[in-house]
Structure formats: structure tokens, C-alpha cells
């Protein structure tokens, strides 16, 4: 079957008639054209000592929105540079203050990140709301239903609860088996901490991803209509991660057998005893890094593509449903070649890389539309400021699938 065609789904409503048809997202930007915009953005940002970066951001976004279309109408990014500039200044002040404070005072060094952690659900929520509010399609704003309590549950209380429960359980178990020695339980947790964090993270991550996707995609609005997220259980997320885990284990086994099979030549332990300029050592290291790079890129691509399909196949707005048909192999190819070209050109390939990725995402996304998307009505939403969004950006707490 042709990978670029989409099927109409008739799974959940019976009365879906012939009126439903597939509309594809299109991205019409070009790397060459975007390079000019990108490099002028950088130049003016440098010349204005960073002030222009707010304008640069808006022009970047407008380029990508304005080149993405659905049913021949393009998306519109309507944030004002001044909004972005104000919040960017605030974020820089916080960042600089944090960096200085954390090097001079131990209390501040711990207290500020803690404060930031407590504020992070709010920041994420504000950021989602701001970005939705300034995104428009046919003159109608997207929006985000801001439920602070839900944000705190999804982004702070549940993840923290899982960790604390596990710690308490381990501490308790050691306390009991250590015949009432409190110190022993504490020590056990301390020693095993990195291991436990990694393990709990991997085991709980698909669940956390599921609840955060559910929170985000069921709170978006377009005009008066709300988006619906139709995944009702964490199971499909776990299946994706289990398959990826199996893939990792198989590859590691394969690599181990390969190294073993090739004997001395590829034995990493032997590299240490080789002459420093030995071409063999050089080649082995290159082969090792290249192999690892491809492997890493492939796993990332697999997770991204599968999660993207799962999430975007299950977003609905009124009768219309999003469709996603992304394959991992071409995504892996794009991610790996983008990375290599960006490294080889010392960053100058970034515009082409971004355009390729945007085109790939658009090409693999569609909407099953009833009629012509003309039934939506604008809703005047309350004023948003960009503060949360920029804080989120500088401290890297954004959300995206």
C-alpha cells in the first residue's frame, strides 16, 4: 500500500457519510529562502545586542506558520515582538540572577530551582496558552483551557508522587529487613538513587507521557470548539516503549556478537595499547561513534514517529479528525543527515534542516474533514501575556511531542 495515502476511518461513528474526505497539510517553505531570513535574524540580533531576537522569533514563526496550509488556508502567528521582548528580558534577569546567586549562596542554589520546579506546571500551562492564543487559522484563534489544578497534577503531583512512593517503599523495606535501623534505609536510598531514578523514569515515562498528552490535547480549543484526545488508556504508549526497549536490547546483543566475532581488531580494550597514530585505532573509534550515532538516531526516530502517529491519529475537533502516517525510517534518515550536515557546516545547514523537518511533518499529517471547515466561530478570549512562554523557553520546560 502506498505510504502517502490516508485511509478514512469509520471505526467510531456509524453515520460517517461520503462527505468526509482527506485534506493534507502542506509546507511550502524552502531552505534557500529561509536561510536569508535566518542569517539576517542572527546578524540583527548580534548588532542590537540581543534585542532584535524578539523580532527574529516572530519572523521565524511567521515564516513556518505562513508556509503551512490546510485546505489552502495558511496558519497565522500573531504574537507581537514587544510582548516577547518584555518576557525575554524578565527571563534573562531571572537566569542571570539564578546563575550568580547559585554560586554565592547554598540556600539560593537549592531554593531557586525548587521554586522553579514548583512554578513549572504553571509556566508550562501559560506557555501552551500563549502559543495557542497567538495561532490563528482563517482569522480564528486557537486557545487553551487553563486548568491550573490539572496542570499541577499532571506535571508535578503525579510524577513526584510516583518517585516518593517508590522511595518510601524501598526505605520501608530496608527499614524492616534492617531490623529497625533507620539509617540503613536512608543509606540504601542514597546509594541506589541514580539507579532508582533511571528505572522509575523508564517504567513510568509512558504513563506520564500519556497523562500529559491527554491534558494538553484535550484542553486546546479552536474558536468555540474544544479538541478531543481519543486515547483512553496508557497501554498504546507502553507498547511503543516496550518495542523500542526490545529493539535496544537486540541491537546491543547484535553489537556484542559483532565485536566478539571480529576478534581483536574491534576490541575496544585493545585500542589502548595501540600506537597513538595507528590508523586502525582511528578507524575503530570512527566506526564505533558512527555506529552508535546511527543507532541513537534510529531509536529516537522510532519513538518520535510512533508517538506522533498515536497522538495525532487521535485528536479530533468536532467531526474532523487528524490523521498521521509517519514512518520511522525516513524520519531517522532526516534526523541523522540533518545532524551530520549541521556539524559539517558548523551550523549553517540549520535553515535547511528545519525546513526539511517541517516539510516531513506536514507531509505526514492530514485531516479527515467533513465539509469545508467553515462552521467555526471565533471566541474572544482573555488577554494573554508571554511571560510563561519565555520563562519556559529559557529554562527548557516546554512541552512537545
Amino acid at each position, binding site marked *: 500500500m502506498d505510504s502517502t495515502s490516508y485511509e478514512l476511518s469509520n471505526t467510531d461513528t456509524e453515520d460517517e457519510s461520503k462527505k468526509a474526505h482527506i485534506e493534507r497539510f502542506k509546507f*511550502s517553505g524552502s531552505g534557500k529562502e529561509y536561510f536569508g531570513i535566518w542569517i539576517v535574524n542572527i546578524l540583527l540580533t548580534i548588532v542590537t545586542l540581543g534585542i532584535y531576537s524578539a523580532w527574529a522569533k516572530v519572523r521565524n514563526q511567521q515564516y513556518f506558520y505562513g508556509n503551512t496550509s490546510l485546505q489552502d488556508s495558511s496558519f497565522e502567528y500573531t504574537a507581537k515582538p514587544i510582548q516577547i521582548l518584555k518576557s525575554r528580558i524578565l527571563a534573562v534577569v531571572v537566569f542571570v540572577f539564578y*546563575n550568580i546567586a547559585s554560586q554565592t549562596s547554598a540556600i539560593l542554589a537549592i531554593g531557586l530551582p525548587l521554586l522553579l520546579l514548583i512554578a513549572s506546571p504553571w509556566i508550562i500551562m501559560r506557555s501552551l496558552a500563549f502559543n495557542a492564543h497567538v495561532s490563528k487559522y482563517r482569522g480564528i484563534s486557537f486557545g487553551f483551557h487553563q486548568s491550573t489544578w490539572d496542570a499541577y497534577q499532571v506535571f508535578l503531583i503525579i510524577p513526584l508522587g510516583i518517585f516518593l512512593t517508590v522511595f518510601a517503599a524501598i526505605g520501608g523495606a530496608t527499614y524492616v529487613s534492617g531490623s529497625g535501623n533507620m539509617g540503613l534505609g536512608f543509606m540504601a536510598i542514597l546509594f541506589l538513587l541514580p539507579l532508582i531514578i533511571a528505572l522509575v523514569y523508564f517504567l513510568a515515562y509512558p504513563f506520564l507521557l500519556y497523562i500529559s498528552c491527554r491534558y494538553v490535547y484535550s484542553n486546546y480549543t479552536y474558536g468555540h470548539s474544544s479538541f478531543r484526545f481519543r486515547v483512553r488508556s496508557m497501554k498504546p504508549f507502553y507498547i511503543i516503549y516496550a518495542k523500542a526497549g526490545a529493539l535496544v536490547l537486540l541491537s546491543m546483543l547484535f553489537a556484542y556478537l559483532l565485536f566478539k566475532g571480529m576478534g581483536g581488531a574491534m576490541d575496544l580494550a585493545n585500542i589502548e595499547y595501540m600506537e597513538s597514530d595507528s590508523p586502525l585505532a582511528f578507524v575503530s573509534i570512527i566506526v564505533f561513534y558512527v555506529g552508535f550515532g546511527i543507532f541513537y538516531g534510529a531509536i529516537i526516530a522510532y519513538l518520535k514517529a510512533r508517538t506522533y502517529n498515536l497522538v495525532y491519529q487521535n485528536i479530533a475537533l468536532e467531526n474532523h479528525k487528524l490523521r498521521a502516517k509517519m514512518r520511522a525510517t525516513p524520519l531517522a534518515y532526516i534526523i541523522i543527515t540533518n545532524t551530520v550536515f549541521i556539524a559539517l557546516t558548523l551550523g549553517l545547514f*540549520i535553515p535547511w534542516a528545519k525546513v526539511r523537518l517541517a516539510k516531513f511533518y506536514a507531509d505526514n499529517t492530514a485531516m479527515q474533514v467533513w465539509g469545508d471547515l467553515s462552521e467555526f466561530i471565533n471566541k474572544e478570549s482573555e488577554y494573554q501575556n508571554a511571560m510563561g512562554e519565555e520563562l519556559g523557553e529559557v529554562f527548557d520546560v516546554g512541552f512537545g511531542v
Partner: protein
Amino acid sequence: MSDLVSSSKQILIEGFYSPQGSSERKKATISHQHNQTFLLADKDSFHLESSQLSASSRIGKSARFVEISDVGLFETRDNDGVDALLRQIHPSALSSLLHGLESNLSWIAAALVFTVLFTWGMVKYGIPAITETIVSSLPANTGLVLEETLLDELKDSLFSDSELDEQRIKELNDLFLEVASNMNVNQDSVTFSIKRGRSSIGANALAFPGGTIIMTDQLIELTKSDDQIAGVMAHEIAHINEQHSLKQLVRSSIISFAAAMIIGDVSSTSATILAAPSLLLELNYSRQFEIEADRAAAEYLGCNKAALDSMGEFFLVMEKDSERYVEQTYIEESSPEQSEKEKSTVGDFLSTHPSSHNREEFFSAFYKNNCE
């Protein structure tokens, strides 16, 4: 005259129109002639005042939006048409200027050249200069406070008490004082001690930001002459004199801040790719510090050919001995993987220190250049 001509020329912009507050979409045309602007959609026709119109900026060939207050939104790809209309109704220099820059090949080339030169200049002169300024404005005891609060406990995990005999330790202490006073260093600002390095550190010498220099028994055992020891001491004293570890701390804050700002704009690609250049940059600066300290050591040894040669040899001996490195500016675990990288030519690029061969060449070249 020219006003009359241009205003009588008709401007027609084809596009689509959505009525105010609705996602309906109709084919539409904006028409401008004789200072009259109309929006024509299906059977509707709206007479527009220029104050009703505001257009989005022109960015490449992306879609252009003209917001018509009380009427709706007009979308088109005819950017030239919209620009012509704007020139008639409310000329604004800025937005067309930016598009001019972004689409003009020579401007793009100039921007590219400027950006590359600027980046190079920042790396070569800017970041070191900013670091210098910040470090010199810090209170004098910053390094000491840092060492006491952060690094004291780490020392215990790296070293145990020295197993050399007391006589030898006394000699080495005297040698250190001699080197320090010959280098005109205030004896209160440096503290010297000999310790046994645990397996993670082996033959090593470290300079801490507060002025403590620690040499390991294993390193002493590897040396063949006091000249070699004096050379290593001079190298470490130079690290402290030049406040290298403080500078390294400040510099990595600057680099991580710059990276955070840049990543803010390119996160959609892949943020990890930016971690690599900043790491390479860090390592490059670190090698520069080592070269600086080596120069100080060579200058201390002066035009003593035997001493300079033995110093160069010492780096090779160190390398052969344990695969672990000679000394490190402050706490960096010297792992076997690291020495693996350091031995290959590609590894040079990924190393905190210059390669031993380069360092040996440096010491013999130093004699040639300065003493012959």
C-alpha cells in the same frame, strides 16, 4: 504628477476572505484605484477605509494576511500586490526594509560573513576578555571559598596520606618553596602537599582554585630528576597565578548561557547538536590554559637544555606509565576511556590537554627559539 499616475493605476489582489469571526472561506479580490479600496467576495462588495486595513509583514513567499476590521481576514500569496497597496495607503519603511535584507543576495552574503567573523572573534577574543573582566572583579577570596565549600570533601575521595618518607617530603616542600619564590609568588597564596592518589587519579598533580597544589606519590615515583618535579610545580603554580580554574568556571557559565539563548531559537531541530560545539569550545580553552602553563614551566626552567628535554620526556613517560594524564586543572576524573581518546589523533580534538607529543615538541622548540 507621479502621485496621480500611481493612484490611477489599478491594484488587484487575488486571495481568500473569511468574514469576521467565522471560518468560512470565500474567493475574494481587493481592488484599489483612485484612492478607493474595495473587497469583492462572491456577490458582496465592501468599501474599505485605509484605517481599517492592517497587513502582516512580508516574510519570504509565505502567506500574507490583511486584517480588515469589522469585515474579516483576507489571505493571499500575492506579496507584491499587498506591498503596492500598502505603499498607496500607509507607507511604512521597516517591514519592507527587512524583507529587502532577507531576500537580497549581497546582504545575505554580508550577514553571513559578519556572523562568521563575529563568532570567530567572540571565541578568540570576546569570551576570554569577558571572563578576564568578571574574574578580576570577583572578591579576592572567591577561589578559596569555592575550594573550601565545594572541593574539600572531594579531596578525601581522591587522595589518601602520602607513603613517601618524611625526609623526601621535606625536600619536596623546600623545592616547592624555591620554585614559588623564584616565580615571585607570594608564599601565602599557595599551599603544597604530597598525597597518595587513589586509583581513579594515579600519577597526577592538581591545582585547586584556592591555591592548594597536590602532587601524588605516583607522580613523584615516575620522575627521574628534581628538574622534572620543579617543571610540574611551575606548571601548577602558573595555573593558580593565572586563576585558571576560576576562569574555567566563569567561562562555562558564559558558554552555557549563550547556548541556552541560541537553543531557544533552534530547539525544533535538535538541541543536543549544540551541546557538542560548546563542549569542543570548552576543551579548546582548556588546552590553551595547559599551553600557557607549559610556557610558564619552560620559562621557569630557563635555558637549561637538559632540564627542558627531560621535561618533554616526562610527558611521554607519564603517558606510557598509566594511560592516565599528567595533571588536571581541577577535578576531572581521568578515566581509561579518556586516555584512549587522548592517544589517537582524532582524540586530540576531544581532549582537555594537548597531546604528549605536542608538549614534548613544545619544550624542545622552546630551547631552539629562546636560547640558541
